[in-house]
């Protein structure tokens, strides 16, 4: 076979692996509930494809070919397992399936079920996002570990443990009932948002962790919207992420310097992304079911308005924060509210909000100190401000943010 034929076979394998990984894993494990075996079987199938496709040509329906190969690998694996007891349920489940994978690309899309399984309350919440990134998008443990600042070995072990739990705890592959859907959906959205990894505190500092996963998170949110079209909070989450994404280019100066939201050049914001975000937000608000992500997106929408009007409506932002506090009184929300109140009413008002937060909760929380420093400085309390700046600098991870805060303190 010519080299170009081999190259095109490899390209096709890469394409299928990238585009259909999650769909294939979800399909393979939806009956067996064994995520790890499904992933292994799929990687075996991909390895077989690497030798078969350049030789025999790319099959007409690559996904069906891979699924068939993966199912054979799964059955072999189960037969070879030494512990018959453990494998019996899997064999039974496999036997209950249709013998052949339908030879159309229209095999059922079980990714939504997989998303709900990954974020099931029986699974440790800390592993929800990594599990989702691995099973639905096929990211490897090393890359996930980097983003989460965990050692790759530990991340690998936690992922394995979570998959064993899913298999052995009898977690059902199904979309939750109406009654428990809002709460369960919240866990899915939460996990996607954690991958996005952008904090709330554009004011003075951002949590950089997970930054390289923003595109993956956006993709997950789009997959979710495709699976649950019109769901208000899914639309809200996507709108929120697109608003943040729209400002990416404006967040850094040409020299890599950190630029806070209030000083960003709105010319550098991406209008198409802002418009897309606004469309989703408008569609969500038609449903009349407000939620945390819609409110957070609404706050970003007010900020985005500055591109047109040249000013920020801090009163509107404060009102959205007040609604948000009722739904989700997290440390991030309270700090964001303090910053907004500081602008809308005055620095004393902002400080009063911050003073209402227990000190213990913030010894590790950078944005609190950055906002506090900013408010104290506006009140002319230089010594106290310098102290808060030090805490914010000491807790910052990003050197550019550290540099920015140093300059503010001086």
């Amino acid at each position, binding site marked *: 076979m010519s080299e170009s034929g081999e190259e095109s076979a490899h390209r096709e394998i890469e394409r299928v692996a990238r585009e259909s990984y999650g769909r294939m894993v979800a399909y393979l494990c939806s009956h067996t509930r064994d995520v790890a075996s499904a992933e292994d079987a799929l990687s075996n199938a991909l390895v077989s494809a690497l030798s078969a496709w350049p030789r025999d040509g790319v099959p007409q329906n690559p996904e069906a070919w891979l699924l068939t190969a993966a199912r054979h690998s799964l059955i072999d694996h189960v037969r070879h397992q030494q512990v018959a007891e453990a494998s019996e349920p899997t064999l039974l489940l496999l036997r209950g399936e249709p013998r052949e994978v339908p030879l159309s690309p229209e095999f059922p899309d079980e990714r939504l079920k997989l998303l709900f399984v990954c974020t099931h309350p029986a699974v440790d919440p800390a592993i929800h996002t990594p599990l989702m990134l691995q099973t639905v998008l096929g990211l490897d443990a090393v890359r996930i570990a980097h983003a989460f*600042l*965990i*050692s790759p070995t*530990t991340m690998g072990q936690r992922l394995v443990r979570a998959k064993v739990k899913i298999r052995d705890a009898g977690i059902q592959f199904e979309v939750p009932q109406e009654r428990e859907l809002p709460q369960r959906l919240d866990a899915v959205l939460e996990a996607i948002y954690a991958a996005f990894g952008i904090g709330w505190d554009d004011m003075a500092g951002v949590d950089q*962790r997970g930054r390289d996963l923003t595109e993956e998170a956006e993709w997950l949110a789009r997959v979710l919207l495709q699976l649950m079209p019109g769901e208000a909070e899914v639309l809200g989450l996507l709108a929120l992420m697109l608003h943040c994404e729209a400002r990416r280019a404006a967040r850094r100066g040409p020299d890599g310097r950190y630029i806070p939201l209030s000083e960003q050049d709105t010319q550098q914001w991406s209008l198409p992304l802002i418009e897309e975000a606004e469309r989703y937000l408008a569609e969500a608000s038609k449903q009349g079911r407000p939620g945390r992500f819609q409110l957070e997106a609404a706050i970003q929408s007010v900020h985005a308005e500055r591109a047109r009007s040249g000013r920020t409506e801090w009163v509107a932002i404060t009102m959205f924060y007040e609604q948000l506090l009722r739904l989700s009184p997290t440390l991030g929300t309270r700090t964001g509210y303090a910053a907004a109140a500081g602008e809308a009413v005055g620095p004393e008002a902002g400080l009063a909000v911050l003073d209402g937060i227990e000190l213990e909760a913030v*010894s*590790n929380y950078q944005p609190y100190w950055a906002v506090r420093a900013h408010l104290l400085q506006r009140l002319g309390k230089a010594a106290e401000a310098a102290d808060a*700046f*030090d*805490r*914010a*600098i*000491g*807790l*910052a*991870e990003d*050197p550019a943010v*550290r*540099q920015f805060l*140093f300059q503010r303190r001086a």
Partner: protein
Amino acid sequence: MQFALLIFESPEAFAARNADETDPYLGAWRAYHKAIVEAGIFVGGNPLQPPETGTTVRLKEGKRHVQDGPFADTKEQLGGFTILELPSLDAALEWAARCPAASHGAVEVRPVSPEYLRRVTG
């Protein structure tokens, strides 16, 4: 549980120690130190003099071998250590990432070994 943050610094970072009070690296260290003290996790630690002040001793077949300079000849050298009291490695990695040396060199995180200390001290 105690973790040691082993601070590996580049020659530039070592040189920055002679800079004046306005040096940003020094400022970042002051802020970081304040943050770990205020968070109540600081156990102890010390900076070390630059690597060229090190002297390495080995005993080979009963003979002393004394070598000028640090044990390992690498670009980034051990510049100090900080001991922190933290619940987990995850928490220690989080604090290591905030350490100013993490963006100028590297920070190795290792658990302190009280078990071995007990065997040594008896």
